[in-house]
């Protein structure tokens, strides 16, 4: 009985829980995207850490370029603490 619990019920419970959680947190997985202007004048989109949208003293950069919230240098420059 105990062996069945470990072999069957526990993994089945874990799998169901994980799948349920994946669907339950689906809305929280929206990509945080930032943009930077490369040396050739093209806007490059990158995934950035969420803290960069809070602002702060440390500039968020990618490949040495300042990241912006939108594809415009007049938009919010991303930074964190």
């Amino acid at each position, binding site marked *: 009985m105990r062996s069945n619990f470990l072999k069957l019920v526990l993994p089945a419970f874990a799998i169901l829980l994980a799948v349920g959680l994946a669907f339950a947190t689906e809305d929280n997985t929206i990509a945080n995207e930032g943009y930077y202007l490369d040396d050739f004048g093209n806007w490059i989109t990158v995934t950035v*850490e969420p803290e960069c949208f809070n602002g702060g003293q440390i500039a968020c950069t*990618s490949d040495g370029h300042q990241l912006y919230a939108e594809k415009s240098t007049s938009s919010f420059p991303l930074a964190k603490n």
Partner: protein
Amino acid sequence: MPNRGIYPKLINLFSLLLTLLFVYTATSKLIHLDTFQTRLERMPYISSYATLISWIVPFLELVIAGLLWFQKYRKVALYGSLVLLGVFTIYILVVLNYSDSIPCSCGGIISTLGWRAHILFNTTFMIMALLGIIWYHNDNIIQTHQNTT
């Protein structure tokens, strides 16, 4: 029945947590396969293999999660967990030299972690897999010894 201590229970607990992690992240990636693929395409070094990686990573995660519950394959699955998490962590560390923005294409709410928290998170699970391997090995030695005496 001989008392084999707390280690087999801990191996079960670690297997359970690794299963939760792998099934959760694999499902999240598969739900948003397009987003996951797009994020991979924007990553340095691996962008040309984005399509292949976007299928292989969740597939491997699900296979490892399944194998963790077959006694025969548990050791292989623990090694697989350690290697897979190790590869993710090394990749993050390498890319962070190139950019200070998190290169995260991981699944679910894990993608909202900062890079420090992410490395800590991965390291914790890698330690679990490593301890699982060591204890599993020791447990097998004890069992073999008990069977031969």
